[in-house]
């Protein structure tokens, strides 16, 4: 994202998304265990300075859109023994999400 550009929400509640399966070094908020999995946008959380940039002593601007994404627990944990409809919510920044 170029400096000064206005961040746009590419997704809306209910959209299916896939988390990027990438492993860059640095401070990344996207948990390892959720990378590569698909879920559904539960809500838009707003825009926040990019923590990956804040972690490197920069201002993290422009702010980046953040979403709460809902996954099925049975998709996340191969040996999950709970109810099949159980869900897990993870807050993920937009640049970690693709259209599946």
């Amino acid at each position, binding site marked *: 994202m170029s400096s000064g550009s206005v961040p746009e929400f590419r997704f809306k509640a209910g959209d299916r998304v896939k988390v990027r399966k990438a492993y860059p070094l640095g401070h990344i908020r996207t*948990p390892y265990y*959720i990378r590569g999995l698909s879920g559904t946008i539960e809500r838009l959380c707003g825009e926040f300075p990019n923590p990956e940039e804040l*972690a*490197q*002593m920069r201002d993290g601007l422009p702010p980046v859109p953040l979403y709460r994404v809902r996954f099925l627990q049975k998709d996340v944990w191969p040996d999950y023994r709970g109810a099949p409809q159980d869900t897990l919510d993870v807050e993920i920044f937009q640049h970690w999400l693709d259209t599946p």
Partner: protein
Amino acid sequence: MGGLPAGKVERTEHDYAEWERRVDAMAVLLMGHDITVDERRRHIEQIPPADYDRLGYYEKWIVSLGQALIQRGVITSDELGRKIEQVRGRSPNS
């Protein structure tokens, strides 16, 4: 932890030690000097795995604050290392 197998979660409450309160206070004060929680998390994530498992929660915070201050030139690694040795050498009653 990070989706990896780990031990049972300890759910009991415990009082904070005085040094833990001080570390918390330092972290809050240094936030006013643009040492963000994100920057501190980056330092904590760079702790080697064996040390990461050995250190307690606020001990990891100390590591992160120390690294942030070293990067800014507020203190040097040498000063911090010597101070730690000096504190280790204190008798328990002093």
